[in-house]
């Protein structure tokens, strides 16, 4: 039946149990939850954060809808469809989520309940990275004259740290999964910040990915980044791998 097929399944590996103690039917402690939504944000975390520390995959989300079906592998390209969780080996309470799949509107609430349902929310800080088209940005000037890509932030009431870019002005709004996560955090009083990158390139794009760089100086990410020069190289490779698949018109 359709409702069953659209069910969201969150699968945690036994590795998470090993490091955080047994949490079956219980919640595991989480101090930082860093989440990337969409190709560019995912590629940014892959090249600047995942590659500079020692991380291991500890879980995944399995879902199906009219736009996508998540893949089963953990060795993924930024263009694949997946939603994976990684933990920092030196500090298992730091959790990273790479969400590169479309979570449909009827699945977003389930996704939240199931993912956040596993976390102990005491002292939790949430950072969300996401992108959207610059044409969604409302401004008295024309969006054509805006120097894109650019970053805008939204934060919950409890988030007291400094924000690395200007806050999103009214009447702009954000929708879908990033909005769902931020709403959840606002209602349940979890400190959270969303960095939204407005870009004019929808596919994987090095310039858009680099636009997230100011976020590296934020308190929650600062300690997770080691060698930026190495990251730039990895990023170049990631984008180049993707280009090969897109040579139909060259």
């Amino acid at each position, binding site marked *: 039946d359709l409702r069953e097929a659209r069910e969201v399944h969150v699968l945690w590996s036994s590795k998470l149990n090993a490091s955080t103690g047994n949490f079956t039917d219980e919640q595991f402690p989480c101090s930082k939850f860093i989440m990337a939504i969409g190709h560019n944000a995912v590629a940014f975390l892959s090249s600047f954060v995942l590659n500079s520390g020692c991380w291991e995959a500890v879980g995944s989300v399995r879902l199906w809808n009219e736009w996508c079906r998540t893949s089963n592998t953990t060795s993924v390209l930024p263009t694949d469809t997946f939603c994976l969780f990684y933990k920092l080996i030196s500090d298992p309470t730091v959790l990273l989520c790479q969400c590169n799949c479309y979570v449909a*509107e*009827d699945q*977003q*609430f*389930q996704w939240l309940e199931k993912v956040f349902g596993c976390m102990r929310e005491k002292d939790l800080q949430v950072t969300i990275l996401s992108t959207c088209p610059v044409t969604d*940005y*409302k*401004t*008295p*000037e*024309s*969006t*054509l*004259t805006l120097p894109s890509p650019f970053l805008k932030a*939204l*934060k*919950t*009431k409890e988030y007291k740290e400094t924000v690395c870019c200007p*806050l*999103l*002005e*009214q*009447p*702009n*709004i*954000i*929708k*879908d*999964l*990033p*909005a*769902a996560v*931020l*709403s959840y955090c*606002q*209602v349940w009083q979890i400190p959270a910040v*969303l960095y939204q990158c407005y870009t004019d390139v929808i596919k994987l794009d090095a310039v858009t990915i680099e636009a997230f760089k100011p976020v590296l100086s934020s308190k929650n990410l600062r300690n997770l980044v080691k060698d930026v020069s190495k990251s730039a190289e990895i990023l170049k490779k990631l984008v180049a791998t993707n280009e090969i698949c897109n040579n139909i018109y060259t």
Partner: protein
Amino acid sequence: MYKNCNNNMVTSLLLFQPAVSVGNVGQLAVDLLISTFDMPKVGYFYTDCLMPMVGNNPYATTEVNSTELSINAEVYSLPSKKLVVLQIRSPFVKNKYRLFCQTLLSWVKSSRCAKVILLSSSHAYQRDDQQLHGTPLRYLLTPAIQKTAGDLMQRLNWKEMEKIAAYPGANDAEMVLHIPGGGITKLLFSESCSNGIQMAVLLKFCSEGDNIPDAFSLVNYLNEWLQLIRSEQSSDAKATLLQWKIPRSWRLLFGSGLPPALF
């Protein structure tokens, strides 16, 4: 489900809420109420029935309060006038209408809201011959509220929403309520009727487009009944119009500026 965001309990008596309907007239009218009375936010209506959306405070008046996060369904209150307002800012998730109505009505029952006023709209192009004449504003009352408000509506010379034949031509005796473009209006109204909830529906026939004038006429209509703001020259429609405060988020309702190269 309702979640308090400060310690003020909802103790007021009158609940306003929009139906997400054609031209978003109800939502715009509710915006005007919140903005005019400068109502503080008291809680969230957190539900899986509405599409998620976030943005900064739509009713910002200063630099400081412009950075408060707003979500898709929030509750505002004005204890001095015994008013509570539920603002809905996004459409429903498919197949979740019924669940939303149930959740909402059980919240209305459990909180101390005596009366509910639903602000709504309906497609102007689907009016029948009798509806084309006179005012485009209509009302509906549940049996529970009929006793207290029915007479006043008569005195105000308001028009009740007409029922139409269920099977035109074949059987003109069976009349049904038909609110095209009204979203959950009909469902919420009929559920309220059967649950004994005191509900009044105020609606306007309109079309999609610039619906700001529709929102003004709907709040003026509401004001005729409840006298929320008193205008000194009540006969002058413009004087009343000036007293409603437009929220800052109504800027750029039709998108960004145009590229100068276009000209």
